[in-house]
């Protein structure tokens, strides 16, 4: 039995290879993700173990608000704390360090050097000196000097001796670059981080905001005192409010932070893998179904000769296992290559020359490659296998015509699965899935796809009929259209593979287009602002500018109102939340069309607080309620609610008075809003623009320009998603090729007959092409429909997040449809050539 199976497998190498290819692509991503993750994780473990090898214990202050994640450190250790630590028994030495995120160097192009994730650190040279390797020049010794790491110097295109600007907690300051340094092992950066070294007082003032404070204290243990014991002693002596960690713990924590960031790549790759494997399932299901149908006489003969059902199922599944093993091996090999390549690319460009740990194929890669490769293939082949076992022995004696089975059961179950998917998706989107929202959304989408795929056979004939009419002006076109509709299941599965990719793109696109449309409308309706000062593309950290710009703008001719917005995270009555402050509260109501609900929202003096109505009712606040606010610096302050405004999409949450801004982590404005008299917009814009020369992270734009810029990044997301899902479409193309190729083989005789009665080669090719195009367009239409549905569901669920409009990406939808035609034509090439080459004589005497 096995031998018979393997023989027949060998005789169909080509078509099984095509199916295996689809699984291979999926396995490649699974294995690639595993190898990449493993390689980078081990590399970073090594890196941080090295960095903290000399650190026994480190002490830092626990942030007052905390958890902002990668924000500038505001909690500091004072000189007095340093003395207390030095006095603890077992401490050999204690050195105060200054290291903080948020030091942005202005490059030779006048822009701050961006970072795609790694921090932009500033620190004091004296404590850094021993751990770095100077490449050029010297360390900073005067307050107007800095040194930077080699990767940053390269990215900023600056050299020793240059005058360079640096943005910190303070607006731009200019320094002389006196040195460039690297790290042990010839690395240009530590895991991609940018590093600017200042003298200690400058570092303290610019990075921590106060003199004579440190971000952390490096403690050396005296002989005979273990790191753990020392840590315990220090923690005990200092009491609450401090974080004490050993070097090993720090290495782990830093490494874990980075790994968390890297995990995103893993999710991304696994996401591709999931989509491609899902699509591959359709392809395999179809291939095995067709093979079983074509072999039905042979299988029936085996049954007639005494093979039992289990043997029949086994014979099909053995084929599936062989295909799966081949796909897993190929996929694993490719995946190791892809993972190694990505790790190298990441190490080189993302992490500034990260020294990679030796390549290894982790056990998880082996396990996932084989379990996924074989599992998916066998799963997809299960249905055809069961069908094979149902072939009655008498079929061996009959013509191999398989009658159309009724679609009732299939359609009914499709409806049920689709409805179920809709419900699960709905629960996930509305947040009723008991904490499993993401799972519910993904599961719901998956179920919806399967349900839609099951429903598809029912609509193949009518839709293929309508679509095909476009091509039915010629006889080959007519024949192609009829062929597309003759086996609804086969056409449906082939089209469904294409549906998945296009539906995902369309769905995401619908959400983004709706969001863009909503943002535009809200801004148009609610923002009565002529000019906006805001950060450019997000380049890590919060872009800020010099508050002096606001004052000078207010003095310009034609300016009627100016206000600046400051943002930070604070604890309000113990709850972490965003708070804002306006440099001038008076024009805010008019600028953002705010409606007053209670109290006065046009003035805000020391001790007062504004809040929106929804936040107020959730927190049980009314005008006159006392509120305790802990900002990033200083002690908690008590404020009284003086006004409540109606929540709008542009302004919401707590607004504190401007006198509290110095207690913010960064006491610089993030946005500026300007109203001008008619006719002054252009002149004011160019004047503000020149004022902003020293604040390269922000620019001034008219309202329309600002909206365009804000929504432009959404377009980039769409492009990225399209590129990513191109893979799913590629697999779907393989599916169309496969189906057509198998159909051509199956219809050899019929094509021979057509050729015998006078169908030319070109006409034969056109017939196959029309069939392919009809299938592809059908799949695209389904995808557009399902995608729009999914997108609309998500948009509805996001209503409260401000996406109130449903806008469809018509332009892209038409593009996808055109793309489907191209896909059909491309997929048809090989099968069409094959059909045209069919030998007429052999075809008609073909058994």
């Amino acid at each position: 039995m096995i031998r018979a199976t393997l023989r027949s497998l060998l005789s169909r190498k080509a078509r099984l290879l095509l199916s295996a290819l689809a699984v291979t692509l999926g396995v490649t991503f699974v294995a690639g993700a595993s190898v990449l993750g493993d390689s980078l994780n081990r590399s970073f473990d090594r890196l941080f173990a090295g960095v903290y090898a000399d650190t026994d214990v480190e002490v830092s202050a626990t942030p007052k608000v905390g958890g902002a994640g990668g924000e500038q450190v505001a909690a500091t250790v004072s000189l007095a704390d340093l003395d207390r630590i030095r006095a603890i028994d077992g401490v050999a030495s204690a050195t105060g360090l200054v290291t903080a995120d948020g030091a942005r160097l202005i490059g030779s192009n006048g822009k701050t050097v961006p970072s795609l994730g790694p921090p932009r650190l500033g620190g004091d040279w004296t404590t850094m000196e021993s751990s770095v390797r100077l490449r050029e020049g010297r360390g900073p010794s005067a307050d107007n000097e800095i040194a930077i790491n080699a990767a940053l110097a390269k990215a900023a295109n600056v050299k020793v001796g240059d005058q360079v600007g640096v943005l910190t907690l303070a607006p731009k300051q200019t320094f002389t670059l006196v040195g460039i340094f690297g790290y042990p092992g010839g690395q240009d950066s530590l895991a991609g981080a940018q590093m600017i070294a200042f003298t200690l007082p400058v570092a303290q003032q610019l990075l921590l905001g106060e003199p004579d404070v440190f971000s952390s204290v490096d403690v050396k243990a005296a002989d005979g005192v273990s790191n753990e014991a020392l840590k315990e002693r220090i923690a005990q002596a200092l009491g609450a409010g401090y974080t004490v960690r050993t070097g090993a713990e720090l290495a782990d924590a830093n490494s874990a932070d980075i790994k968390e960031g890297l995990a995103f790549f893993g999710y991304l790759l696994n996401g591709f893998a999931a989509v491609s494997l899902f699509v591959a399932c359709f392809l395999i299901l179809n291939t095995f179904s067709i093979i079983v149908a074509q072999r039905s006489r042979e299988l029936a003969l085996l049954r007639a000769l005494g093979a039992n059902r289990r043997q029949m199922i086994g014979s099909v599944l053995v084929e599936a296992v062989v295909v799966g093993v081949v796909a897993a091996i190929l996929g694993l090999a490719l995946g190791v290559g892809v993972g190694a390549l990505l790790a190298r690319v990441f190490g080189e460009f993302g992490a500034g020359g990260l020294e990679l740990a030796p390549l290894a194929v982790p056990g998880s890669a082996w396990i996932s490659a084989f379990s996924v490769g074989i599992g998916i293939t066998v799963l997809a082949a299960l249905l055809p296998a069961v069908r094979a076992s149902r072939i009655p022995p008498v079929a061996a004696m009959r013509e191999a015509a398989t009658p159309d089975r009724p679609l009732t059961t299939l359609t009914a179950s499709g409806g049920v699965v689709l409805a179920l998917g809709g419900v699960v998706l709905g629960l996930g989107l509305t947040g009723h899935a008991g904490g499993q929202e993401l799972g519910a959304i993904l599961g719901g989408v998956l179920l919806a796809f399967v349900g839609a795929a099951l429903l598809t056979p029912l609509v193949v004939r009518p839709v293929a009929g309508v679509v095909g009419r476009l091509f039915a002006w010629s006889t080959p076109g007519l024949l192609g259209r009829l062929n597309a509709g003759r086996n609804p299941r086969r056409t449906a599965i082939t089209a469904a593979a294409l549906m998945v990719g296009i539906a995902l793109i369309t769905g995401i696109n619908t959400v983004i287009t709706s969001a863009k449309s909503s943002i535009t409308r809200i801004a148009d309706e609610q923002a009565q602002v002529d000019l906006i000062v805001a950060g450019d593309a997000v380049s890590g950290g919060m872009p800020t500018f010099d508050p002096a710009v606001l004052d000078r703008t207010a003095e310009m001719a034609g300016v009627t109102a100016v206000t600046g917005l400051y943002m930070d995270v604070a604890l309000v009555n113990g709850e972490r939340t965003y708070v804002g402050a306006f440099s001038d509260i008076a024009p805010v109501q008019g600028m953002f069309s705010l409606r007053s609900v209670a109290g006065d929202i046009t003035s805000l003096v020391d001790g007062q607080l504004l809040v929106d109505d929804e936040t107020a009712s959730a927190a049980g606040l009314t005008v006159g309620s006392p509120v305790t606010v802990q900002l990033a610096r200083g002690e908690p302050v008590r404020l009284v609610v003086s006004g409540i405004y109606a929540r709008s999409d542009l302004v919401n949450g707590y607004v504190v008075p401007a006198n509290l801004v110095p207690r913010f982590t960064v006491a610089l404005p993030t946005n500026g809003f300007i109203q001008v008299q008619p006719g002054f917009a252009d002149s004011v814009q160019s004047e503000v623009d020149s004022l902003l020369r020293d604040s390269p992270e922000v620019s001034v734009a008219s309202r329309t320009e600002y909206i365009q810029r804000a929504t432009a990044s959404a377009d980039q997301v769409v492009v990225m998603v399209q590129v990513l899902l191109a893979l799913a479409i590629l697999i779907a193309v393989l599916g169309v090729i496969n189906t057509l190729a198998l159909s051509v083989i199956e219809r050899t005789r019929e094509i021979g007959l057509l050729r015998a009665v006078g169908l030319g080669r070109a006409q034969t090719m056109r017939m196959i092409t029309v069939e392919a195009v009809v299938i592809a367009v059908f799949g695209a239409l389904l995808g557009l429909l399902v995608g729009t549905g999914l997108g609309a569901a998500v948009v509805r669920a996001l209503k409260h997040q401000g996406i109130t409009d449903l806008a469809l990406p018509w332009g892209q939808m038409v593009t996808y449809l055109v793309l489907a035609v191209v896909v059909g034509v491309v997929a048809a090439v090989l099968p069409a050539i094959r059909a045209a080459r069919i030998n007429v004589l052999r075809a008609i005497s073909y058994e």
Partner: protein
Amino acid sequence: MLTTTERAQTAVRARDVWKVYGSGETQVVALRGVSVDLQRGQFTAIMGPSGSGKSTLMHCLAGLDTVSRGTIHLGETPVAGLNDRQLTQLRRDKIGFIFQQFNLLPTLTAGENILLPLTIAGRKPDPDWHATLVATVGLTDRLSHKPSQLSGGQQQRVACARAMIGQPEVIFADEPTGNLDSRSGAEILTLLRQAVDRHHQTIVMVTHDPLAASHADRVLFLADGNLVDELHQPSPDAILATMKTLDVAASGSGR
């Protein structure tokens, strides 16, 4: 040399046709210098034991297979040396086919199947001829049926109508009754006979059934790739008798 009238009377002319498959040890000679003229408006049957080369001869005459040596003319057109496009055109415009396996397109209705050769060529049918044909084959009320809804006999009648719709120079029929019961087979043969008698159609039929061959005007006998005998207006018994001598000759020659 043939006279002009003789030439006009000849639908298919084969001269010294050889067909050799393979080469060296595995070489098989299917036709050994066959020369034959098939008259216009005649019903010719080709008979012979299995492996006698009768199917090969028909395939070569119909331009489905190339000859190794010799010439074949269909009317005035030399068949040998045509490229695929010219052969396709020849088949489309000058030849009709009827196969043993019916070979209808399952996606088209009976009516559409009948018109298929014309639709492929982009020609309109002559409405009178179409009506006559449909009535003759007795399918008037079944034109909108799919092949799967028709019996074997009905399917073969559709195939006959399809072969005749373009009024080709020659219709080649390959065992047209081979897959049918005797009554349906007789209907098909009557249909072919009528086409010859009433519409002056030229038909060449390959068969191994003496009863079927007895409907023909002329029966050619092939053995071992040679044309060995022929009968005119024969009875089934006469055909059977000739076949028997061929079988004996074939077994006698060591095959």
